[in-house]
């Protein structure tokens, strides 16, 4: 944590470790995307097959929730999925064990294990579903707040807060639990035990990226759907 001047109290701290890890994740994604993009062929190479399967996976998410209408927000869901997956997997590298032994006073964990990162992602989901809803329906979008009857207004308003909040909390808590488990395992038995936890975490990393992007996709699809 370092302090930055010129901002009020809760906003003047920057978590440098999270920032560095997020930058590493973004650099990895950029490099891999650039390599995949290099020479595309009709008969794909291994790297191109990998890129295509990632695309197919993200497209299956939007297809499952919004059908072919989902292609409009595929760019957002795909970016979410790829960033979260890379970030989660980055946390499974043994960086934190090296850091624990070296005595560096920070925590080099996955960037999604910090709720600032996941809050940013969740807020973008909120903005996106407002954007797609308003683009689709215009000002009639706000009619869904009083949709079954005007008595549902408070419930619908609260939903706009709980949706990003639950997205944020789910990803953050899952990744943090994994990191803490791995650290506990490391301090009990540094040679074999963390490997077991890390293998479990590889699965969790994938599932959480999938859940985050599919729920975002559901929210966007739900609020930009046609009225019946």
């Amino acid at each position, binding site marked *: 944590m370092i302090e930055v001047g010129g901002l009020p109290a809760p906003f003047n701290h920057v978590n440098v470790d999270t920032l560095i890890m997020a930058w590493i994740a973004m650099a990895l994604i950029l490099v891999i995307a650039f390599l995949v993009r290099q020479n595309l062929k009709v008969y794909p190479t291994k790297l191109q097959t990998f890129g295509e399967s990632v695309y197919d996976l993200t497209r299956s998410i939007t297809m*499952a929730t919004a059908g072919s209408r989902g292609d409009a927000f595929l760019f957002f869901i795909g970016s979410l999925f790829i960033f979260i997956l890379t970030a989660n997997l980055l946390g499974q590298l043994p960086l934190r064990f090296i850091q624990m032994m070296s005595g560096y006073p920070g925590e080099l964990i996955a960037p999604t294990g910090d709720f600032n990162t996941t809050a940013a992602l969740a807020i973008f989901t909120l903005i996106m579903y407002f954007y797609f809803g308003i683009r689709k329906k215009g000002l009639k979008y706000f009619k869904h707040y009083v949709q079954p009857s005007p008595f549902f207004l408070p419930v619908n308003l609260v939903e706009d807060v709980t949706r990003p909040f*639950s997205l944020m*909390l789910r990803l953050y*808590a*899952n990744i943090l639990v994994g990191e803490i488990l791995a650290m506990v395992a490391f301090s009990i038995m540094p040679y074999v035990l963390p490997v077991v936890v890390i293998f479990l975490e590889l699965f969790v990393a994938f*599932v959480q990226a999938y859940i985050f992007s599919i*729920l975002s996709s559901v929210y966007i699809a739900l609020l930009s759907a046609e009225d019946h």
Partner: protein
Amino acid sequence: MEPSTAALLAGPLAVGIAAIGPAIGISLMTSAYFNSIARQPEIQGGLTPYYFITLGVVELLGLFGFVSFYLLFNRFGG
């Protein structure tokens, strides 16, 4: 009882009690998921996204317990 002792007791209790509900919920859900796949194997592709959506929703309740534990621990225990 000192506040820090109470917090140390409350944290693990929060995690444990909060885990009961999601455990039951996820077990019920997964058994229904496997049953339906056993009956109709071709439905698996259509069912899996909904399974994961519900998994995320149910699991969140357990994570509330963990987060409250973490906050309590950082506040009083550390």
